[in-house]
C-alpha cells in the first residue's frame, strides 16, 4: 500500500505486526460483538481502518481513559456518546495525536492505523494528521478569506499552482455543500459567514487535505437545528468517501446518522455495537440508563 510507506518508513512492519498479535487477546470479544451484527451481515464484510487497543491515558495523575478498545470501520459513521467528562473527546483527540500538545499527558496501549501504531516514534505526525482530519466543536475558521481557508491545507502540503488550487477549493466546497452559498464571496473574510456555514467551511477545509478519516468533535453543538440537519445530511453524503468518527452529546443525532455507536462512561468504553442495537437493546444496564435519560 503506497500510503503506508508515506506514513511509516520501511522496515517497521514486522514489529507492528508482532504487537498486533500479542495485544490481540483482551479486546477481541468485545470488538467482534459489533462486527457480527445483522446489518453487518447484510452489507457484506467491512474493512477495519483504525483500531484502538487497550488505550489508557492520563493527564498528570488524572486518568481520562481506562483500557479502551474500539475498532472503526471504513466508510462507516461511528458515534461516541456519553456524559460530559467521560473521555470521548479525549479518545477522539488521541486518534490524530492532538493530545500531544498537552505537556502532562501519558499514554499506554496502541492505536493501529493501516497496520501501524500511530504512537510509534517513527510516525510523521504531520502526515498522520493530514490523513486523519478533524472538525472542532466551535467553528474555527482562520481569519482569512473563504478561499484561503480551504487552500490552507493544500498549500502547506505543497500544492502551489493556482489552477490546481482553484479546482480543489471548488471541489471541497461542493463536497461540503457550501459552494452555492459562497461561490460569489470566496475572497471575503470567512468570519462573515454564519455559524453553520463556518462549520461547513471547516469541514471543507478538512476535506481539502484528502483525509481517510474525519474526526468530528460535537460539530453541531454550537449550531441551530437547520444548520445541524445540513451537517448531518452532509455526513451521510461523505460516508461513501470518508470514514467518520463523531463525538456527540445528542443521542438523536447519534441514532440518526451513525452506523455504530460506542457508549463511554468515566473513561471506560462500556458498550460498543450497531447503532440500532445500542438504542433498542443495550446489553449494559448503564447504557440503558443513559439512553433512557435516567442520568447524564
Amino acid at each position, binding site marked *: 500500500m503506497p500510503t503506508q510507506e508515506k506514513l511509516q518508513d520501511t522496515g517497521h512492519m514486522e514489529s507492528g505486526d508482532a504487537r498486533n498479535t500479542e495485544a490481540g487477546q483482551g479486546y477481541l470479544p468485545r470488538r467482534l460483538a459489533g462486527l457480527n451484527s445483522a446489518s453487518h451481515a447484510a452489507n457484506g464484510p467491512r474493512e477495519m481502518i483504525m483500531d484502538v487497543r487497550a488505550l489508557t491515558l492520563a493527564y498528570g495523575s488524572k486518568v481520562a481513559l481506562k483500557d479502551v478498545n474500539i475498532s472503526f470501520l471504513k466508510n462507516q459513521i461511528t458515534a461516541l456518546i456519553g456524559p460530559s467528562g467521560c473521555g470521548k473527546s479525549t479518545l477522539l483527540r488521541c486518534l490524530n495525536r492532538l493530545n500531544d500538545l498537552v505537556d502532562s499527558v501519558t499514554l499506554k496501549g496502541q492505536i493501529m492505523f493501516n497496520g501501524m501504531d500511530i504512537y510509534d516514534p517513527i510516525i510523521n505526525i*504531520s502526515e498522520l*494528521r493530514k490523513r486523519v482530519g*478533524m472538525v472542532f466543536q466551535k467553528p*474555527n475558521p*482562520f*481569519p482569512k478569506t473563504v478561499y484561503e481557508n480551504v487552500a*490552507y*491545507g493544500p498549500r502547506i*502540503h505543497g500544492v502551489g499552482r493556482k489552477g490546481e488550487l482553484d479546482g480543489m477549493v471548488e471541489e471541497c466546497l461542493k463536497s461540503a455543500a457550501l459552494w452555492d452559498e459562497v461561490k460569489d464571496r470566496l475572497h471575503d*473574510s470567512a468570519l462573515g459567514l454564519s455559524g453553520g456555514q463556518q462549520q461547513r467551511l471547516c469541514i471543507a477545509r478538512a476535506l481539502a487535505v484528502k483525509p481517510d478519516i474525519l474526526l468530528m468533535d460535537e460539530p453541531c453543538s454550537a449550531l441551530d437545528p437547520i444548520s445541524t440537519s445540513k451537517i448531518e445530511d452532509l455526513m451521510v453524503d461523505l460516508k461513501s468517501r470518508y470514514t467518520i468518527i463523531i463525538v456527540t452529546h445528542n443521542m438523536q443525532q447519534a441514532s440518526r446518522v451513525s452506523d455504530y455507536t460506542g457508549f463511554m462512561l468515566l473513561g471506560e468504553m462500556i458498550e460498543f455495537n450497531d447503532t440500532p442495537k445500542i438504542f433498542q437493546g443495550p446489553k449494559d444496564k448503564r447504557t440503558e440508563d443513559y439512553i433512557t435519560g435516567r442520568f447524564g
Partner: protein
Amino acid sequence: MKELYRTGDPLIWLTGGALAFSLLMVVGLIALIMYNGLGFFWPKDIVRYTLADGRQVMGQLSEREEIPQFGEGKKEPLWRIKVKQGNRDLYGADFIWINEADIKTEEKPAAAIVLERREWGDFIGVIKAVKDGATAIAAEPAEGWKALTGALAGQRRLFEEARALERDEVGAISYDQEKLRLANRALKLKGAKDDDPRITANLAGIDKLHKDYEAVMERVGAIRAKLTWTVVLTGAGGVEKELPLYMIVRAVKPNELSVFGKAGVYLSKIWEFISADPRESNTEGGVFPAIFGTVLMVMVMSVAVTPMGVLGAFYLREYARQGVFVSAVRIAVNNLAGVPSIVFGVFGVGFFIYFVGGSIDSLFFPEALPTPTYGTGGILWASLTLALLTVPVVIVATEEGLAAIPRNLREASLGLGATKFETMWRVVLPAVMPSILTGLILAMARAAGEVAPLMITGVVKLAPSLPIDGYFPFLHMERKFMHLGFHIYDVGFQSPNVDAARPMVYTTTLLLLGIVLALNLSAIVIRNKLKKKFATSAV
C-alpha cells in the same frame, strides 16, 4: 445615604470626574504649549516708548506683569512691561523692563523695521541710508526700504552661493583628503616605508586636493567681493549701525503690514523653523537636524526592537516550558521596563560604545585611532540603547497578543497536518501582528520622548552634519546627532540668552509632540488595517 451609595451613582461621578480631570490636565498642557509656541513667530508691532527721563526705547512688547508691592494698605496695582528692543550688540541685552508709570508717550513709527540678522539677534531701528560700497543709493527711510528689499535677495543669494561652495566643495575636498590620509596611515600600520609608491601617490593626491581647495577658496573670495551693499540704521536713542546686507536673514516692517502680510511672515518663519539649521547657539533659525535625528533614531530603534521583542515573546509563550523559571524571566522582563532610563544610558556607554564600538574600531578602523569611529556616542548606539529600554514593552504586548489567540485556531492548523512552525508562521504571526504593532507604538512613544540615556550615548547640542549624506555609505550610523528632546533642554536651560530662547522651548515642544503623534498615528493606521484583515471573532 445608604440608598445613594447602593445606586452606584457616586461611583459614576467619581470615575467620570477622574477622567475629566485627567483630560483637563492634558488639554491644559497642550493649550499652554500651543499658546506659547504658536504666538512666537507672529511679527509684533514696533512701539517707540518715550520715558519720563527723556530716554527712548523702541521694540516689541513681549510681556506685562504686576510689580509686587510691600507695606500696609491697599495700593493701586503697578505694572511693568518687557520690551524686546533687539540690538544686542549695541545695548548689551535683547530685552528691557520698563515700569509703565515711567512711560510718557508711546507711538508706532511707520518707518520702524526689524532685521533678523545672522549674528547678534534682531536689529530694530529706522533706515538712515543704503549704500553699495561707497556709493549712496538711498538716504531716507521709505526709499531706503525699497532699495533694501530690492537688493536683499540678490545679496543673500550670493552669500548662500559662497556658503554652499564652502560647505559642499570644500567639504568634499576635506573628505577626500581625510580618506587619503587614513589610507596612508593604514599602509604605514601594515609596514609600508615612507617611500612606498602608494604612499607618495596618496601624498601627491593630498597636495592636488589642497590646490583644488585654494581654487575653490579663490572663487569664494570672488563671490564675497560682490557682497558690497550695506544699510545704515538708527536705533532708539540715536545710535547708528552700519550693517552688510548679506548678514540679514529677513527684513520686516511690521507696523505697515496688514494681517495677511503678517501671516505671510509668520508662515515663512514657521517654514524656516522646521526646515533650516539652527543659528546663534540654537536660539534662532530652525531645528531641522533635530527633527531628522529624532525621526531617524526612532526608526532605527524600531527596526532593532521589533525582531528582538517579538522573537523573545514567541519563545517565552510558544516554546519555553511554562514553569518557575519562565515566570521568573517574565517578571524580570516586566521589571526591566521600570528601570530608570539613565541606567540604560550608562549600560549603553559601557557596553555598546566602549566595548562593542571599541572592538569595532580596533578591528576595522585602526588607522583612524586614537580618534574613535564607532567607539564614541552615535546614532546607532543611542538607538540600540533605546531598543533595550523599550524591548520589555514589545515583549509584554506580543505575549499578551499570543495568549489571546484562541487555542482552537492553532489546533485547526495542526489538525490539517501543519507543523508547529507552519502554524506559527501562517496563523499565529498574522493574528498577533496587531498586538506587535501596539507594542511598537508604545515603544516608539517612549523612545521619542526619552532624553537622559541619549545625552550620554550620542546626542549633541549641535551636530556638524546629518547622519545621512551623499558620501558612501550614505547612512552614517556612527555620527552624533541632534534630538528634539535634548534640544528643548539645551535651548531652555543651557542657552546664553534665556529670554530669547524660552519661546523656542515651547515651539520645539509642540513640534516634538507633533512628531510623536505623527509616528503613532501612522502605526495606528497600519494596525487598524491589519486588525480588519485578521479580525478574530469566530461565531
